[in-house]
């Protein structure tokens, strides 16, 4: 299982701030997890559609090639706009 969090406009589009996900067979990195979630259909296809979607793994920003392990915390969010 991995913990998945969503923020900002993506959180609103999905109607949830997060969930625990069982990784499907062969899902070993962030890009594959994103495809697994988007494959559920609407509204999850927002994960595929959102331009420049960013990801964090265990609270550090990473590329989509970052490898996943059981117990990880993954977050998906739009580009940040603080400051």
């Amino acid at each position, binding site marked *: 299982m991995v913990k998945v*969090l969503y*923020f*900002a*406009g993506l*959180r609103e589009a999905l109607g949830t701030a997060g969930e625990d996900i069982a990784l499907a067979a062969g899902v070993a990195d962030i890009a594959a997890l994103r495809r697994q979630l988007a494959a559920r259909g609407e509204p999850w296809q927002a994960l595929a559609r959102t331009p*420049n979607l960013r990801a*964090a793994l265990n*609270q*550090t*920003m990473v590329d989509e090639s970052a490898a996943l392990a059981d117990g990880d915390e993954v*977050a998906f*969010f*739009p*580009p*940040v*706009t*603080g*400051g």
Partner: protein
Amino acid sequence: MNSRVSVCQEPFDLAAELRLLTEGRTDIGAVASFVGLVRDLGHRAPLLSMTLEHYPGMTESALEKIAEEAGSRWSLLGVRVIHRYGTLAPGDPIVLVLVAAAHRGEAFAACEFIMDYLKTRAPFWKKEATAEGALWVDARDADDAAASRWRS
């Protein structure tokens, strides 16, 4: 290097933070400060409020990493970063960066660096409310460009 970051809803007191950073020190010759305010961009109906969402836990560690990175690039004597979240009004302060150093060159450069990195690496998102509804603010390419000029 002494660095402290806070993520909070309350307003901050620039004078009090300046005093805390410099009290009892005689080696600090310069403190550069930056204060970011809620601005009405004037693109749509008048701005009523701005709500900042963040990623608790990651936000604090991202700000600490940015402060540490500044400390490894310049010779600094202190860094203080405060970033607010929640619902703010136009003109309200959002972010404070204070950088103390022996000389102004390091203080100015590190202060700008911290803001440039914060804009692209700290997990905050702004949503603007007007009489016509609420909209998430889009990230600006100019912010990516500002952050990338420090990579070399």
